[in-house]
């Protein structure tokens, strides 16, 4: 066999052995990052929804007495946790732990006074519910690219009760 022909054979091998697997891995990574970002957006909306729902825990008697609005802290925290779990459950197929477990591990801060939000760092002017939660997400495409399919996302969100 001449040197030239050996060269040709090599070229076929490059396509078959290197190019195709590399392209498959690149494709898997592109799709994995895409779905991870969409999941992040969805989680952010779910956390916002939970925080917003928790701001319904207003101290009604104080409001009736004409005081500025304030949140009943234990009630607001319980509501935030409950609705975080309810909303996360809609995405349970992408989570590596149960929605209830993730919500139970969430850090929830209810602030009635003015100051700085300990979770988001934003300044607080109205009663605020802030949430920080670590969500283990399952992205099977990352496994296809040779990486760990479980990624832990740490997300925060907050909502304020204004009149």
């Amino acid at each position, binding site marked *: 066999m001449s040197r*030239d022909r050996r060269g040709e054979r090599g070229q076929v091998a490059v396509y078959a052995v290197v190019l195709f697997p590399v392209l498959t891995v690149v494709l898997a990574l592109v799709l994995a990052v895409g779905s991870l970002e969409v999941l992040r957006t969805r989680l952010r909306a779910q956390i916002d929804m939970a925080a917003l729902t928790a701001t319904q825990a207003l101290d009604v008697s104080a409001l009736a007495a004409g005081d500025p609005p304030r949140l009943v802290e234990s009630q607001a925290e319980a509501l935030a946790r409950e609705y975080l779990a309810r909303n996360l459950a809609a995405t349970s197929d992408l989570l590596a732990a149960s929605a209830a477990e993730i919500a139970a591990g969430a850090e929830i801060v209810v602030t009635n006074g003015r100051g700085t939000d300990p979770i988001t760092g934003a300044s607080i002017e109205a009663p605020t519910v802030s949430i920080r939660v670590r969500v283990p997400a399952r992205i099977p495409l990352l496994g296809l690219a040779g990486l760990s399919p479980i990624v832990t996302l740490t997300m925060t969100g907050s909502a304020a009760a204004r009149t």
Partner: protein
Amino acid sequence: MRRRWAGRPPAPTRADRRGEWGVATVEAVLVVPLVLVPILLAVVVFGRLEHTRLVLDAAAAAGARQAAVAGADTATVRARIADELSDGGIDPARARVTIEPAVADWGDPIRVRVEIGEQASIPFIGSWSVPLSAEFVTRSEVTR
């Protein structure tokens, strides 16, 4: 069988060279449409699906907020969802909207779900109907 030459191997003849060019062309003809184009199209199709997913999320979240304020499955809630969908370039008629329960008292949970069957097709590979959905749960703010 391997042929051996005493000195330098003979230069490739014209026929050999034509053969090489042919191989490279055949490879290009096979690899570009069968491998590269489907991969590129898969990325594009996937991007479109993810866009639809984001629009569904936005519509369901906006609908859930509206449903909390209305405390029920009302025309306003459905109009809000339809607006969000058409703003995102999705025909609202294609989406299925579920709002449960139809009437919720103060403090009761309301679930808003938006579903759509999106068509994804990649030439040479296939075509699928991909079910996409978004769901948010909130709490009625209406005292009845």
